[in-house]
C-alpha cells in the first residue's frame, strides 16, 4: 500500500514538472485523452480495455481509473488497441479514480 502511495506521489510530482515544462501529459505519463464531439461522440485514446457496456452507460479502463460515459442509445463505434469511440446521445462523462 505504501509503495502504491509512493508511486502516486512520484507521479503527481512528475505531472507538476511536465506541466511546468509544458510537455503533454498523455505523451509521457501514459494518461488517457478524452475528446468529445458535441453530445454525439466521445473518443477515448490510450485506454486499457472495455469494462462495461450497456445502452445507457459505457465504462472504459484508463491509466489511474475509469472513464464512465452515460447517455442514451450508446453504441461502441470502434475499439482498437489505441482508442474506443462511443456514439449516441451523451449526457455525462466522468472520471473515477481507481
Amino acid at each position, binding site marked *: 500500500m505504501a509503495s502504491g502511495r509512493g508511486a502516486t506521489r512520484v507521479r503527481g510530482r512528475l505531472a507538476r514538472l511536465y506541466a511546468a515544462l509544458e510537455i503533454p501529459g498523455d505523451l509521457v505519463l501514459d494518461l488517457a485523452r478524452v475528446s468529445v464531439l458535441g453530445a454525439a461522440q466521445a473518443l477515448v485514446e490510450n485506454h486499457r*480495455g*472495455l469494462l462495461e*457496456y450497456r*445502452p445507457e452507460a459505457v465504462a472504459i479502463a484508463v491509466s489511474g481509473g475509469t472513464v464512465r460515459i452515460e447517455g442514451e442509445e*450508446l453504441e*461502441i463505434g470502434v*475499439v*482498437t*488497441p489505441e482508442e474506443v469511440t462511443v456514439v449516441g446521445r451523451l449526457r455525462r462523462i466522468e472520471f473515477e479514480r481507481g
Partner: protein
Amino acid sequence: MAEKVGRWLSGWVRVEARGARLAELVSAVARAGHPVFAARAAPDAWTFSAPRGALPAIEAEALRLGLSVRVVGRGGLPELARRLARHPSLLAFGLGLALLLWLASSFVWIVAVEGASEVPAPAILAAARDLGLAPGAFRPSLDRDRVARLLPVLIPRLSWATVSLRGTRAVIRVAEEAEPPPELLPASRPADLVARRDGLVTDVLALAGQPAVRPGDIVAKGQVLVRGRVEAVPRGYDPADPRAPRMTMDVRARGEVRARVWYHRYVEVPARARAATPAQGRGFTRYRLDVFGRSLILWGRREPPFPFVVSERAWPSPTSPVALVREDVRAEAPPAREVSPDEALAAARRTAVAEVAGGLGRGARVVRATAELVVRTADVYGVAVLVETEEDIAETREFAPSASR
C-alpha cells in the same frame, strides 16, 4: 473513410456473443490487434463486427472466457465474390455492367469550346468533328495534338487551339487572331491616313490632321485621305491670304474615312444539286456489340425514320469474333436535280457576299450585291458578282518628319 474501404475490401463478420464477460471479450480481441466496430448491447447479448480474419481469435477468446459466440452476418468484398460465384448469371451481369461502364467512360460524350468570341462555336465544333473529335469519339484513338494543330489551319482566324480531356468531356480552348490595336503603333511618328482600297468617299472624320478629300470624291488605293503635315498661319493672319506667312506642323493623322467600295467576284455554281429534305443533315451514332456473328445494339436507335447510309468502325477489328462497332448513321442524300439560273444567281450572290463580308473590318456593311450570268455549261454556271460595301478605307502610313513633301 479509408478504414471503412479497407474493412470492406478485407471483409467482415458480425458476431453475436452471449455470456457474462462480454466487455473482456471485446477488449481482448482489440488487444490482439483486431478492431471491433459497431458494437451494440442488448439485455442478454452483444453484437459487434470485426474483420473476417479476427474470427479465430474471437472464438478462442470466447472459449477462454466461457462465452458463446455465433456468426450472424458477413459482408465485404470476399462475401460478395462468394455470392457471385454461386450465381454465374449474376456474375456475368456484374461483369457486363462493369464492361459497359468502362466502355461508356472510354468515349467522349461532350465537346465544349472555350475562348471563342468572334469565331462561332458551331464552326469550331464542325471543324473538330471533321478531325475526329465529336460526341461519341473513342478516347484512346483520339489524336488530340492533331486536332489542336489542324484547327487553326481549317479556321485561319484561330491563332492556336488546345484540346483537353476531363473524363468524358473534351474542351477545345482557342485563341483568336486579334487585329493589332492602334495604340500599339508608335504614336510619336507623324503619319497620313491613306486609302486602303479604291472607293467613293461618303464621309470624312478627321480627328487629327487635315482632310485631303471630301464626300463625293473618288479615291484610288494609296491616295492620301487625311494629311499628317498640317499648314497653319500665325494668329492674326487670314488663312486665305496667299501672302500670309505659313508654318507646317507634323502630326499623326487620325480619323475615319468611309467610302463605297466595290468587289468583283466570279463564282461557279454546280448546275445540278441535291434538294434539301427534312432528313438532310440528320444522323446519329450508335454502338453495337458483335459476338460470333450475332449483333446486339448497345446504345442508339435501331431503325432511323429516314433513308440512311451507315459508316462503321470496329474495335479491335471488324473480323474479330467479339467486336465493338461504332455506326455513324446519316440521312441518305436525296437525288440530284437541275438548278435554275435564278437559283444559281442567288447562290452565287450568297457565296460572294459571305466571302466579302468575312474580310471586312469592324463597322463595315454590305450595301448591295448584283449577280450576272456569264458562263453556262452542262455542269456549271459561271456568275460574276459585284458586291458593294460601305466601310472605313483609311489606314495609317508614316512619313519621316524631315522629309520634303
